[in-house]
């Protein structure tokens, strides 16, 4: 059993961002010649990728490049048509997925109160406890909204709740699919802070964004995807200053890449 406080939401157990988290045995994440096709169209082509346990990995690329599919393949929401996805040598299954969580572009909140949305995952993981729920809501700045219907929250609050709910499962890996694309700058900042705090406690973050500023603020390494292929995987500094591929350079320069 890993100690519960390592990825605790309270933040009093912060560890060095560069140290591997408690979920180190899940790494490296290895995609070996992964492809995915639907309706006869190949959408992901022969992706080879290895991700380390530390930090935040950003997946970037134009719309339709296959970023969301790649994220879903890593999380096991969809199965690859070819190739394998392994986590620390383990095949993707419920045992692995249970140690991960995902926040979607549009938060999927249950038709219940804010508190009940948190209770749902706590019960699911067998740790229902009003005290812990309060801590989680406090941390997300939602304590005052506990009894409100979740779906009447503002867009930013809804995404914050989705984040808090995902982190309530104490995941070793947090996936985010453009979590702030519909949010204003202030709400975006709050989401980024929560993500950063989680990363600093050792949770691996893998997320998609089109927001160049956000990528620069959060990324430790960047995976650039174009037309279903990974064109480049570099440390953030290198990627933003000297991208290896012309496409990535053009993309960052705001050019439309085809």
């Amino acid at each position, binding site marked *: 059993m890993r100690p519960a406080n390592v990825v605790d939401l309270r933040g009093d157990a912060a560890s060095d961002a560069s140290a591997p988290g408690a979920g180190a045995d899940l790494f490296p994440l290895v995609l070996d010649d992964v492809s995915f096709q639907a309706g006869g169209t190949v959408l992901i082509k022969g992706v080879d990728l290895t991700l380390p346990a530390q930090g935040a990995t950003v997946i970037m690329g134009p719309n339709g490049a296959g970023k969301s599919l790649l994220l879903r393949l890593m999380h096991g929401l969809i199965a690859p048509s070819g190739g394998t996805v392994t986590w620390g040598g383990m095949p993707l299954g419920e045992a692995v997925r249970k140690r991960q969580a995902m926040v*979607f572009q549009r938060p999927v909140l249950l038709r219940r109160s804010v508190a009940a949305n948190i209770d749902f995952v706590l019960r699911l993981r067998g740790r229902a406890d009003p005290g812990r729920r309060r801590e989680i809501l406090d941390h997300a700045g939602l304590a005052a909204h506990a009894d409100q219907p979740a779906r*009447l929250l503002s867009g930013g609050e809804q995404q914050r709740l989705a984040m808090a709910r995902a982190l309530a499962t104490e995941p070793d890996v947090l996936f985010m699919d453009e979590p702030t694309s519909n949010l204003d700058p202030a709400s975006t900042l709050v989401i980024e802070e929560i993500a950063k705090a989680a990363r600093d406690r050792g949770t691996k973050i893998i997320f998609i964004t089109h927001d160049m500023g956000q990528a620069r603020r959060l990324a430790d390494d960047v995976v650039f995807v174009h037309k279903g292929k990974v064109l480049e995987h570099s440390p953030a500094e290198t990627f933003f200053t000297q991208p290896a591929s012309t496409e990535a350079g053009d993309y960052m320069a705001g050019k439309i890449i085809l």
Partner: protein
Amino acid sequence: MQDFGAAFLTAFDLLIGADAALLEIIGLSLRVSITALLAAGLIGLSLGAALAVTRFPGRGFILVIVNSMMGLPPVVVGLVVYMLLSNAGPLGFLGLLYTPEAMIIAQAILILPIIAALSRQLIEDLHAEYAEQFRSFCVPTGRMMVELLWDARYSLLTVMLAGLGRAMAEVGAVIIVGGNINHLTRVMTTTIALETSKGDLALALGLGIVLLSIAIAINAGVMALNATAKRQAYA
């Protein structure tokens, strides 16, 4: 036309005077139909939720059958239940024919497909929204059904209401398996049929008014509940 006016007056007299025979009939009607609704609801909602979240070979065929059975003719259901419960039938030993229990069974069978088919559609739509998040959280199938049923609770009330309406309004099945026996299996619809053929329009009309009033009251209640739920974005 004179008959009609007189019948109305007598009907109101019976209602206002809380006529004992009338109350007995209304009470039995409610008991039979509500019990049938609870039984059919328990099975129908589980079945609907199961069909909504699972995929297996032959599922499409089952959906076609369940959907078609929504239009089951009450007399056919009555006939089948009659054959099952009659002394010569496989369940004859239970001695249920011409009892309220037989009527409950017939009505439950009649409305089960309605509840199963409508709830399946509703829960499947909701599941389309939740599926990916549930998969991400590794929610087990049984748990998924419970959570979906709970989140669809207000819409499912309308489904249950459709079932209750069908049960209360039908006459074909209960008259066959209940026999319309005075003080025992006489419900509103069977009494209306009987009294109309006997020419006692007042009692028939009185019951008709009660039947309508109950339907309106239940509908209004559920609508109010749903409006509240919508305001809270729970529906």
